[in-house]
Structures are given as C-alpha cells and as structure tokens.
C-alpha cells in the first residue's frame, strides 16, 4: 500500500469505570477504505471521535500526516466527519452548509460558490443549494452531509454509520455511490457500520471490533474465509462454530472428533497435538450432508427447513445439542424434518478459531 496517512498507537479510553477502548493500534494508508465493524457499544464511534478530535484518548497517540495530533483541537485537524444524524445546520441553506468550512477559511465568495456547486454536482444534487435542510428527504440530507464533509478535500473522511437511517434499497445504492466517490476523490475513508454485508462490500480492510479491541484486522476475504476467532466467524457471515478434540494430525490435515462423529479441518499454520481441544468455524454453504448411515461424518437430525431469499436453510442438530446451519441454492432437497443424516465438509472449508485463547486456558 501507499504512504501511511493515519496511525493510531495503543489508544485507550475510559468513561468512568467503563473501558471503552483497550489499546487499539492501526496504520492506515492514503486512499484506503477502512471499515470498523462491530455491534453497538464496541467502541467504534469513540475511535472515530478520537480521530476527529471530539474526544481525547487517555492513553496512546494519534498520528496524522506524520504529525502527532493527539491533543490538537478538532478545528486544527485535516479530518472531516459525516455524522450519524447528518448534523446539518437547520438555520442555513444547503449551500451555506456546504460552504461553511470555506467561509471560516475566509475564501473569496466566488471561489466558495464554485466549490459548493462542484460539491453539489459530486453528490448529484445540483440546483438544491437554495433549499433548507428541512425541505430535503433523508437520502438527500445524507448527500449534503457528504458534500459538506468533502468540500475541503480532507486527508481522512470519517463516516459514522452514514447509511443507518436509510431504507435497504437506498442503502445499497448509496454503498455503490460512496465507493465510487472514494475512488474518484482518492480520500482515505474510515467507515463505521454494524452491517457486515456493507463492510464486506465496500472495504479495502475491515477491523472487526469487540469490547474496545480489534478482534481481527484484514481484507474482506481474510476476515470472511479465515476468521481468527469464533466471534469474528459468527459476526461476519454467520458461520457455524463447533468444538471437538484433535484426534490425529496428518500433514496439514487435522482429524477432529466431535460429538457423534468426526470431521476434517486444515491446520492453517497453527500447530496441534493429538488430544488438544479445538474450535472449528464452517460456513453454512460448505456444510454437506447425506442420508447414507454408513458414510463417515457427524450424526445429526434435521430440525428445520426454511426457504428465504433464494436460499434453503436447513437446521441440523448434533447429539450434544449444537445446531449447525446448512444453506443451499434452490428449493428442492430430498430431506424431511426429523431425518437422521451424516454431516461432512471438505477439510479446507473448516477453520480452526480461538487458537490463542485455547492455549491461554
């Protein structure tokens, strides 16, 4: 990647007795699209506010463009924010909102007007300059908020769940537009969402957050295909997680004993000894099953069959009560609720997770 534009070094923040951030570090390159993904209360908004300067960290440094800005005021930082509720000034026209930062810089009037017109064209709202924010729809306000934040061409643009208040269809469309806008402007985006689909669609890298930590930081493919913890596996793309014991290690392939049978997995760089406990994550689309009782695999009973969104979802219950989900395209499956089956998957599609955590125990 290109040159580093923003660096967080060991940021920690406490509110009273609550640890909101527990030492997070990340280095972000110029023009990158980074998503902070996590449930509400995981510290993602606080991280954003610390970068914007609206909050001061208790520990750690914020380095922007090679300069330590940890203690500098928000107005001194080359960073702009698209707020979750848009925070458009209700007493100013759209044009005045967008031109606000330029007016503060005392730019000449005709220059401001041109920049505002360009920004409006960028978000496809040309001609809306004289409207008041109250006269706009939610989607239009969203665009104005984006135009206002990029009119200055900041080094980093922070977006706090910008699409959260929009309906699904508009959200999908805005995802594409935002991504295109980011490519066009070449500005670094730091994007907050709790929607894993949005994160997978748009990001260059995703930081999955939990309890004020980065649980995993990687490309969408890494986070999806090789989750490091069961939390990431469940949060991103809702994988099946099950526990077992390592029975044998044959080269890179692990033989794992689970309740009601055995399954395979790949070692993926971790080292295991036979007898060690192991947790596996398997995506639902990789779960296979057969009615042949002689086949190898894990014994299970079909509990539920639902069809939604073009996918057939089958809930399989193992003998220890664990439920696995298998998903298939199409509606025809020759199985009924209550059927006894044997579940298998290719070793390559099972990922060992929580390995460090297991060792720590």
């Amino acid at each position, binding site marked *: 990647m290109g040159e580093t534009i923003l660096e967080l070094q060991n940021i920690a923040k406490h509110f009273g007795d609550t640890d909101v951030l527990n030492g997070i570090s990340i280095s972000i390159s110029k023009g990158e699209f980074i998503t902070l993904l996590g449930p509400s209360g995981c510290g993602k908004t606080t991280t954003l506010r610390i970068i914007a300067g*609206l909050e001061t960290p208790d520990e750690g440094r914020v380095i922007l463009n090679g300069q330590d800005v940890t203690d500098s005021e928000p107005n001194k930082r080359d960073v702009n924010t698209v707020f979750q509720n848009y*925070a458009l000034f209700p007493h*100013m026209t759209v044009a*005045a909102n967008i031109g606000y930062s330029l007016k503060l810089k005392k730019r000449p009037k005709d220059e401001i007007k041109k920049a505002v017109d360009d920004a409006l064209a960028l978000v496809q709202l040309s001609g809306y300059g004289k409207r*008041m924010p109250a006269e706009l729809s939610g989607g239009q306000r969203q665009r104005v908020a984006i135009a*206002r934040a990029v009119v200055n061409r900041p080094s980093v643009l922070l977006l706090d769940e910008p699409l959260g208040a929009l309906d699904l269809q508009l959200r999908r469309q805005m995802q594409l537009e935002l991504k295109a806008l980011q490519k066009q402007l070449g500005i670094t985006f730091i994007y907050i969402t709790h929607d894993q689909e949005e994160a997978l669609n748009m990001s260059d890298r995703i930081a999955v957050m939990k309890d004020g930590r980065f649980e995993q930081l990687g490309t969408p493919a890494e986070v999806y295909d090789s989750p490091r913890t069961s939390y990431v596996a469940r949060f991103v793309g809702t994988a099946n997680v099950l526990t077992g014991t390592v029975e044998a290690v044959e080269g890179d392939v692990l033989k794992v004993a689970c309740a009601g049978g055995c399954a395979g997995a790949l070692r993926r760089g971790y080292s295991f000894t036979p007898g060690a406990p192991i947790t596996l994550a398997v995506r639902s689309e990789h779960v296979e099953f057969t009615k042949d009782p002689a086949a190898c695999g894990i014994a299970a009973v079909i509990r539920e069959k639902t069809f939604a969104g073009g996918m057939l979802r089958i809930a399989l219950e193992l003998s220890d009560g664990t439920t696995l989900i298998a998903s298939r395209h199409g509606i025809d499956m020759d199985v009924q609720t209550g059927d006894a089956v044997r579940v298998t998957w290719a070793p390559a599609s099972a990922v060992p997770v929580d390995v460090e955590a297991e060792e720590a125990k």
Partner: protein
Amino acid sequence: MKAAATPLKKKKKQSGVWLTLLPLYLFTLVFVAGPLVYMFVLSFQTRAEVWGVVNQFTLDNYKNIFQPVYLNTFVESFKLALTSTLLICAIGYPFGYFMAKLPAQWKKRVMLLLMIPFWTSSLIRLYGWIIIFRANGTLDKLLMGLGLTDGPLKLLYTYPAVVVGMVYALLQFMILAVYSSAEKMDWSLVEAARDLGATPLKAFLTVTLKLTLPGLLSGVILTFIPSMGLFFIADILGGNKVVLVGSLIQDQLMKAHNWPFAAALSVVLMILTSLMISLYKRVTHTTELEGIL
C-alpha cells in the same frame, strides 16, 4: 416546508373544529376583546367635571401625551426597560445556556430553585429588597463591616435600586426562555461546526447563538414589555423619583381619576408593545430563512 404546511391547514378548515373552539372564542371575546374595545372607546371620551366620563368625542387625551412631562415619562421608561433588559440578557442568557447543559438531575434542582421564589408574593419579596437597600440596611452593614465603604450608601429610592428590582423580578422569564431553546439544541451541530474548522467562539456565534436566538428574543419581549409597566417596583424601590408609564397610568386612573387619559396612555403602550412583537416575528422569521451565505 411551505408545501408540507398547506395541506395540513386545509384539513383543519374542513373538519369543522370551530365548534370545539367556540368556548375559547367566547372567552376571548368577553375577557380580552371586550375590555380592549372599552379602553379604546374610553380613550376618545372626555373626563367629567367631578367623577367618571362624558360621552363626548375628543383627541385631547392623545394630544396630552405629547406634553413634555408625559413624553419624558415614556422616554425614561424606555431607558429603564432597556437598561434592565440588557442586564437581564447578560445574566439570563449564560444562566439558561449552562442550565441546559447540566445533567438531567441537576436541571430539575435548578428549575426548582428558580420556582421557589414564585411561591411568595412578589410584593413581599420586594420589601425584602428594601431591608437590603435602606440606609444602614443589610448591604450597608455588609460593605461597612468588610471595610469597603465608610458610611451608608443610601441606595434605596435611587435609579440603580429600581434597576436591581426589575432585573430581580424579570430574570426568571429570560432564563426559562433561553433554557427552553437551548434545551432543544442538537449539540452535535456544535461538534459538526468544530469538525468543519470553527473555533469554539466561532461555533457559538454561527450555530449556538443563531439557534437559541428565538429564546433570547422571546426573553427580551417577556422582560422589556413588563419592565415598562411594573409601576410598583418603581414606586417601592424608587420612591417618587422614578416615574414609569405604568406608574403614570396608575396615578391617572386611581389618583387623578382621569380615566380617558389613562386609557389613551394604555393604548399607546399597547401599540408600542405590539410593534415590538411584530418586530420579533420578523427577526426570527428572517433568521429561519436566511443562512450565512
């Protein structure tokens, strides 16, 4: 906004709610419009020799107002109201602003403290000020005890005493007006302003002040207008030295028994008041529609 408002209005007209509003109209007619019309008619009548009025049309009552003595009363009242209102703004705006930023629990406590004085008659509270201000009163004793002054200041029955009384009597209205508009403020707007490069002062001037302006202006209306007419404060704390329009009306009505002149004075005061309210409407209206560009 306009487009959204019109269909709503039409709906209201169609649904015949006027029937439920009838008692309200009747009440207003009898208790508000009636006395006003009577006062207006009275102001064009002639004073009777001994008692009451004679039904004879005249403009003399209005002409009388332009006598230097009475005109001067208006000017003095205006000056006093202006002084009091400016002081009330200076104290009440920051008070209301910071009150809105308090944690919810503290807001309630402060609100209670603001309300408690209202449980006592304002006249009695005013007598409290006499005890504080009079020669060798509480204030004098305190200042002399601290060695700040040598003798009594003789503050009672002076102009400053009247101003203090006005500020004291009307401050709550300003605080509550500012508080209610600051309470509605979305503080993330201030953060947005800071994020876009505004210093704290600039963010206050371009965002907070503009958005709390309706509160400040309605506070001005709520304090300026009464302070032209609160004659008992001027009487009790100012002796006969400070004569307000309010005192003048009261004197004409109760002592001189010149009802038509008192009515004419009241009409003029009301016109001035209405002018101020229409000015307020225009100002707040324009701030709503015009941005900073």
